[in-house]
């Protein structure tokens, strides 16, 4: 089959890009796969796409290139199709509206997959009749602003399926009531690392992610103060860059942990860095999936993670291949780390279990799940042309109805607050 992905910018660095590339590369072993990038700001993608996947862009944003389109007047006028409540709204415009519409009108794929809410809305509203329409959610419904949720509820009935990365988020999407729309959780994929797994002998705890508030590295550093007190021979490395760096640096100095906790800066690829550790730590207050957890497990590390929404609890089996601890509690995190630090046998056993359990996230497994989803939706489309048409009609009607109802609600609210 012919599968076409629509992505915001395939030339950047980020979880969605990485996981889309993994999926596309694997699907390309048996299918025709293309990735269409709305924006392009660089000559070559940062991540490796492999030879089998076609990649093209819709709007050229390479400032030093001859094809630069960022100064097009249409690019200065705000987008009308791309929802205003979407995070990336500022990067969309009349020009992107037009180019995406043009692309979706002519698309010759069997399956078209959107990779973020705003693009899913485009696909729901503008893809020509024929291809199966799939909208991926890489974040979570709960974290979207109310206006975006309304926009999604209005447009998504015209999709054939919505995929989330966790069961928890799939449950949230099912409460939106999108009749006839399959809602299915398919986790992100992580390839097997190209190096030997960690052997659990090094005295290093490793964490990796953006140095952002939501990762709560302050909690991890405070926890490590308690670890270092009991086991000064163990140390912590935190990989990643970000806005919190100066604050975390100050906290390390304040707690006198500068011989034990190290801010390593960004690293790509991360696998060799995981392999240097014996335990991975995740202190986040929110993980829409938990890519780093899977990455660490695939390198043979047991992961001590906070049991935050949404991903960690669906990836880690507490006590078997890692530990789940309450959010925001340094003492609980420290205790779980020390349990694994003080028991070499348990640590190595859980590391081996993590290695085995994380095979389910292999791109071949995840691509297989997508393949069956595509197959079933295509069969439904072919076998029940009438039902397909009915779904589309009902979707369109429902979109209109929701839109009217939501508009009415907003109007009422407007009056009340006025």
């Amino acid at each position: 089959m012919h599968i076409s992905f629509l992505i915001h910018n395939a030339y950047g660095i980020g979880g969605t890009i990485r996981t889309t590339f993994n999926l596309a590369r694997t699907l390309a072993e048996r299918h025709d796969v293309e990735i269409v990038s709305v924006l392009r700001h660089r000559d070559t993608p940062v991540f490796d796409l492999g030879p089998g996947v076609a990649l093209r862009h819709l709007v050229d944003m390479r400032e030093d290139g001859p094809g630069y389109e960022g100064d097009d007047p249409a690019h200065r006028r705000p987008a009308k199709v791309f929802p205003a409540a979407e995070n990336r709204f500022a990067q969309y415009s009349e020009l992107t509206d037009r180019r995406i519409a043009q692309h979706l009108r002519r698309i010759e794929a069997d399956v078209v997959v959107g990779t973020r809410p705003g693009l899913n809305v485009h696909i729901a509203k503008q893809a020509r009749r024929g291809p199966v329409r799939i909208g991926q959610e890489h974040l979570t419904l709960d974290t979207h602003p109310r206006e975006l949720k309304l926009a999604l509820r209005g447009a998504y009935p015209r999709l054939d399926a919505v995929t989330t990365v966790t069961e928890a988020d799939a449950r949230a999407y099912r409460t939106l009531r999108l009749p006839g729309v399959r809602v299915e959780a398919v986790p992100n994929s992580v390839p097997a690392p190209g190096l030997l797994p960690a052997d659990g002998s090094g005295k290093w705890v490793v964490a990796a992610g953006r140095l952002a508030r939501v990762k709560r590295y302050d909690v991890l550093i405070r926890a490590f103060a308690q670890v270092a007190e009991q086991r000064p021979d163990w140390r912590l490395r935190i990989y990643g860059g970000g806005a919190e760096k100066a604050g975390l640096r100050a906290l390390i100095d304040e707690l006198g942990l500068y011989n034990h906790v190290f801010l390593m800066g960004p690293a790509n690829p991360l696998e060799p860095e995981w392999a240097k550790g014996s335990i991975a730590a995740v202190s986040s207050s929110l993980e829409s999936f938990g890519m780093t957890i899977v990455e660490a497990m695939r390198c043979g590390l047991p992961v001590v993670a906070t049991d935050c929404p949404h991903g960690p609890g669906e990836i880690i089996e507490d006590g078997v291949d890692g530990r789940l601890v309450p959010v925001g509690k340094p003492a609980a995190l420290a205790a779980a780390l020390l349990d694994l630090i003080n028991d070499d046998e348990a640590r190595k056993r859980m590391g081996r279990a993590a290695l085995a359990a994380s095979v389910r996230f292999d791109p071949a497994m995840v691509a297989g799940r997508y393949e069956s989803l595509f197959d079933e939706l295509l069969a439904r489309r072919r076998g029940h042309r009438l039902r397909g048409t009915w779904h589309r009609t009902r979707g369109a009607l429902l979109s209109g109805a929701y839109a009217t109802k939501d508009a009415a609600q907003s109007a009422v609210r407007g009056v009340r607050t006025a």
Partner: protein
Amino acid sequence: MTASTQLPATPPATPAESTTPTTPTTKEHPAIDQEPQAPAAGPDPARRPDPVELRADCIADSAGGLTFDLSAPEDTPASWNAALVLRLRGGDGADDEIRLPLGPNGSGRLRAVLPSTVALAEGRWNAYADLGDGRNPQRLRPGVNDLRSLVDRRPLAGIGRLGVRIPYATKYGNLALRSWLRGPHAEAGDIVVTPDGMTVSGRLYGASPAAGAEAEARARRKPPSTDAGRDRVTVPLTVEGQHFRFTLPYEELAGSWRRGSEPWDLWLRPAADARPVRIARLLDDVADKKQVFSYPALPVRAAAAQVRVGPYYTLDNDLAVRVAGPEEPGE
């Protein structure tokens, strides 16, 4: 930079330009019917000098040796004179280029080995592949650098001369090595800072600490003080086998501060009559220590003003102390 790279990327306008087809004018805005530019249109040749990008995975062993595995393009003939070429940045002597034979390693990969016994001068070495096909050696890109055996590296203390090579990705995404060659070598470990001074623990390689061993801080400032004694502070060394420890009080360093930011380099003299060796941190997988191993700079009251004093690693990963005046921004 060669002259050819300085040529403008686009050729100057020529009369021939008038013969090139122009975009047909339409009533609509040109952007509307303009097809998005597909990469198939061909990359700008000036932007991509090399047809195939070559990546090298690199595995380090605990003795200081490195093994490079290249994913060679499929049509690469296994040439008898293929080599991985290392060139010392800024070097032009005979010893500033090293060729390591590049041979097949099964599964379409090429392997080269840099044994710990091959001496590499201190500095940054760029890595190239010469596929023996008559073309210029091609700059290598980094693949997976498996440096786990370097992380807590503890060489034998009796080692005469210590070689350290850490592969890393340059700012431009190329593969390079940092190399150090030292004997004897004083490896800094934990550093504890207090408002009174700093205590450095470490290990000495290639020499045994003896009577009269001391650590020495030397002011780097130019011109040196008229009283040479003010540019040098020595403290005794506590030794236990290969391990050493010393405490450098901040008072004297702060007292001789004159202006701006004044760095002091730290040396170790293994015995009263021995040649001093630079104290550095080399024995791990971190190519640039300065940002990673960072220590607080603490306020110290000096005669002239209140200064801030704290240890740091130089760009060469040598240990130093900075005494900074009140107007200097902190590190």
